[in-house]
């Protein structure tokens, strides 16, 4: 991950479409925030990747962010965050609005296998090369990564798995 961090320096989040300041609230472990550890990851909720428009969140989606010293993650629809007035977590809720290297989404197929996307409006991978590199970084941490890949047409990370 340090190699990745060196290649892709931390950047400020894209806050063009910030609805309000609650999207900058930094979540705590009481709100389900955790740090991603090397595989296998224990005490996680297994999930299912999204299939289409009607199932766009899949089941048990986690948001992840590569920050300068750690990789926080949280379930997007973690129950306890509603106490903070949030409908769902956003990537800036994992950083408090601080700079980060990259962010995306994942679903645990099992403790060491993840469906993986670079979907984020705040810190998304900026190119297919960056997505490939972040996938490689997660693999180097012991995960079997099923990447959704890059959508050339939209020039964005793909949001579901076609392969």
């Amino acid at each position, binding site marked *: 991950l340090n190699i990745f961090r060196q290649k892709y320096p931390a950047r400020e989040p894209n806050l063009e479409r910030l*609805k309000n300041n609650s999207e900058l609230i930094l979540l*705590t472990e009481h709100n389900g925030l955790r*740090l991603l550890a090397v595989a296998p990851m224990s005490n996680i909720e297994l999930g299912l990747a999204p299939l289409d*428009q009607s199932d766009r969140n899949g089941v048990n989606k986690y948001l992840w962010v590569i920050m300068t010293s750690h990789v926080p993650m949280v379930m997007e629809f973690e129950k306890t965050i509603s106490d903070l007035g949030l409908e769902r977590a956003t990537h800036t809720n994992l950083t408090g609005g601080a700079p980060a290297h990259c962010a995306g989404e994942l679903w645990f197929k099992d403790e060491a296998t993840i469906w993986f996307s670079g979907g984020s409006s705040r810190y998304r991978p900026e190119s297919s090369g960056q997505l490939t590199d972040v996938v490689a970084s997660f693999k180097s941490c012991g995960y079997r990564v099923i990447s959704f890949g890059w959508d050339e047409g939209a020039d964005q990370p793909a949001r579901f798995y076609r392969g």
Partner: protein
Amino acid sequence: LVGTKVPINLRDSTGDKMPTFDSEQEKLEFIFTCKGKGLSPDQMARGSDLLFIRSQDLLAVYHQKGSGRVLSAWEALQAFGVDLLYEAVVDGSAILVSTKEEPARTIARRRKDLGLSNADIAKYTRLSLEDIHNLEDPKRRNPIQHLEIMARCLGLDERRIGFKPGSGGDNQLAIRLRNLKSSSSHFTPGTVMKFNEAAWTIATQYRLTSWLNAGEKPFWETNFEADNTYGDASYPAWQRGYYLAGQTRRILGIGHDEPILNLRELCNKKLEIPLLQMPLSKDIAGATLANNDDRGIVVNILGSNNNVWIRRSTIAHELGHLLWDPEQNLNRLKVDHYEDFDRDPEYFLRSHDFVEMRANAFSAELLAPRDASVEEFKRTDLRHVMEKFGVSFSIARYQVWNGLKRVIHWDSLVVDDILATDDWVGRESFTVDYFRPESVPTSRKGLFAFLVVKSESANLISEDTAINYLGCSATEYHQYKDLIFDIFQ
């Protein structure tokens, strides 16, 4: 990656409550950043500079990159609705496809429904066989441009490809085309795809017209009602055709002896009926086509229609079908052949084809009413009847002969020259012969092109869509768009 504690100081976690954006209006104000300005949804979208980009699978906010189709805010909103745009804005992108099997499943089904092979499509579209195979593979992400080409030749709404199963295709039209293909060796796979492209053009023309006219119905829909009378022994179908021609002239405010100087413009501008002039197989004169609720006329520019006076009678014949025939008699697609146009009414009587008999009589009477034709003939000669009313030799001959109660000898009605004069050619064939850029497919020249340019100017479609609709290059579009606008304006 090791560790479980969060090593960051917590910020105040009592910030503002997240708004829920329950109403469509609130979502639109957020998407178009115009909260509190009191704009209607239409005003917000039409006035927005926000652009989106779509690929096979995603809709995203456009940021000067990506090989997908760039869409204006208005066209994205019309195609996908508020919720999807909202998701694209909030999350950076939104999943478009309705199921993982789309759009591959719709494409494969439609191709089979039409009885087309991959090789047929490759030959017509110039997509490679591999490209076409990929479009039917649900594991592939295909270029949106390939999907659009495929959608057009299969008669699908390219905007809905992947988004809605079936992509707005008219199933009855597909069955009709397949049956026509099965029943005639002249009705080739290429002809099937040409009619599908025509169906796409007609639907697109109606959509753009409706957007530009704020949803008003076209003139012909509000002023004409289908007529189910095809006559009997005492009141034959041809007589009904004459009557309906008179009715048509009255509704349009055309005098009983007044020539219709520009039938192309009458269709396009007054009646607001898409009229497509395009090359078809040489035995076909024209057709009336319905794509879901959208009806239009397709006229062959090859064969006898090369003479614009004959082309005018083909158009008038198709108008007779479109304006007056009930849907069950059109069966989505009514194809007319040249050989049927010159037939005597007795032939249709024997074959019980009263629909064609009526349309033939309608065509002749609409263009050259008998009384007025006889008047002109008595004053001058048959050639002058042709020149005055812009009709072919056979129509002028029939109208004069019938108008004179057939007392004159048929063989005495002759002319030296059957070719149309330059003024008629200029008016009726203008969009086909003089349109620029030449690379625009013939069926999309004319009013369709004007509507595309006008829609782009009004911010209803993006420049990328406009170029795609016209099928020309960006350079050509920039070079000719003002010219197209000025000529048709």
